[in-house]
């Protein structure tokens, strides 16, 4: 087996950064995966004119969905399977089997962990430091693990191929999944007092009462009365009420 050159991995990595560019309701990010994986398939026997490349490309844009940062694992594993001469039907099954786990792991690790934690630290710093520090902290705290995860995914996917389960069982990844939720909850809790002090602190007593009413309204509505309404729509409804009251 002739492994793809390093430049092919760099190209695939850069293309993976746009993996959701053509997100659609039919193939989800299948086209993005096909676009990203192509440089890794050029080293198949016969090159771009060979039957291996042609057949692999025919499979490459079929339905696929996962967390975007975890797609590198699928790209690496599928490319490795194609290089190892795994039958096409088995490659298709591998793609299908990866959809659930890569989505679940990525969503929990990133959307419900790293992102809210970085956001909360950014909020806390914005409340207490010079303008820009909080935003810069959010970007730094988020993007270091983000980019590391993307690079690791592509390399680990290629290394493990069809035995990708081993990469998903890596102790560091399992450990991160365990701590990231509580860490994010703690970070959000940490941000609440300084953010409250910054946003409401300088206001008068009537505004404090209005803010407390807003907290109560959010908790009662979003926790008990209408959880599916969403904070955004609740806030718009409250704003419309205030504007109407002021106009009358």
């Amino acid at each position, binding site marked *: 087996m002739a492994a793809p050159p390093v430049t092919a991995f760099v190209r695939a990595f850069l293309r993976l950064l746009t993996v959701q560019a053509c997100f659609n309701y039919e193939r989800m990010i299948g086209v993005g995966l096909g676009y990203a994986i192509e440089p890794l398939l050029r080293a198949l026997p016969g090159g771009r004119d060979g039957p291996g490349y042609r057949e692999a490309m025919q499979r490459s844009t079929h339905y696929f969905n996962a967390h975007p940062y975890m797609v590198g694992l699928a790209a690496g594993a599928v490319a490795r399977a194609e290089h190892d001469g795994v039958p096409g039907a088995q490659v298709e099954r591998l793609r299908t089997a990866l959809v659930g786990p890569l989505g679940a792991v990525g969503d929990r690790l990133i959307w419900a962990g790293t992102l809210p934690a970085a956001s909360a630290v*950014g909020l806390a710093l914005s409340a207490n430091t010079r303008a820009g520090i909080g935003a810069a902290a959010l970007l730094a705290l988020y993007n270091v693990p983000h980019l590391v995860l993307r690079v690791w995914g592509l390399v680990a996917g290629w290394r493990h191929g069809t035995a990708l389960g081993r990469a998903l069982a890596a102790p560091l990844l399992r450990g991160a999944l365990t701590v990231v939720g509580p860490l994010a909850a703690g970070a*959000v809790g940490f941000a609440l007092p300084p953010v409250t002090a910054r946003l409401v602190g300088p206001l008068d007593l009537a505004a404090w009462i209005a803010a407390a009413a807003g907290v109560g309204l959010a908790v009662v509505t979003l926790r008990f009365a209408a959880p599916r309404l969403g904070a955004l729509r*609740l806030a718009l409804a409250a704003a419309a009420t205030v504007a109407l009251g002021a106009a009358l």
Partner: protein
Amino acid sequence: MSALTFAVLVTWGVITGIDLVSVLQSMVARPLVAATVAGALVGEPVTGVLVGMMLELYALEVLPVGGARYPDYGPAAVAATVAAAGGGPETLGVGVVVGLLVAEAGAWSIQVLRRWNTRRVRAAAVPLDAGDFRVIQRVQLAGIARDALRALLLTTTGLALAVAARRWWPVSPRAGVLLTAVLAGIGLGTAMLNGKRLAQGRRGLVWMSIGVAGGLGWLLLR
């Protein structure tokens, strides 16, 4: 607002818009980042930070999983900062309302974009299934162009709304302060609920309480 400032704001809005899903996802689309930069661009960094903080509390609610419907807070934060600029707490609420409206319009625009993408992918199904790389590349890169167009329209509409809101907002300065307070309260309540949800159950409550105690300590010691 000068034409140059407008052009720079629109460019920034487009960058944040495509960052949300299509390109990189580095989180410059987060309202805290988008509004902080927009504030610096219009010469009001503190307003940008405050608008960004308010909208970030709401954005904590969003879990952008799979094909879910979620707001686009990047262009929204740019418009919100422009709407809030030049005032104090009495205009901050106006900015947040503009931001929330644009973010909601952004959620709708993402669905329109995905349906558009679906039609283009369906039209190219035969060459895609034949593994024609030139078509794969064209379909994929056209997706970025479509998203950039979406973000451009969203930002431009948002900025127009921001200017209109500043000119014709029917709320007195006093009511504006109360509006800011109510919206801050709803945002804080939302953040509380979502902080607890992140670790789930009693464990989440314990971790969040530890965090709150730490935040209070930091607040008292600073």
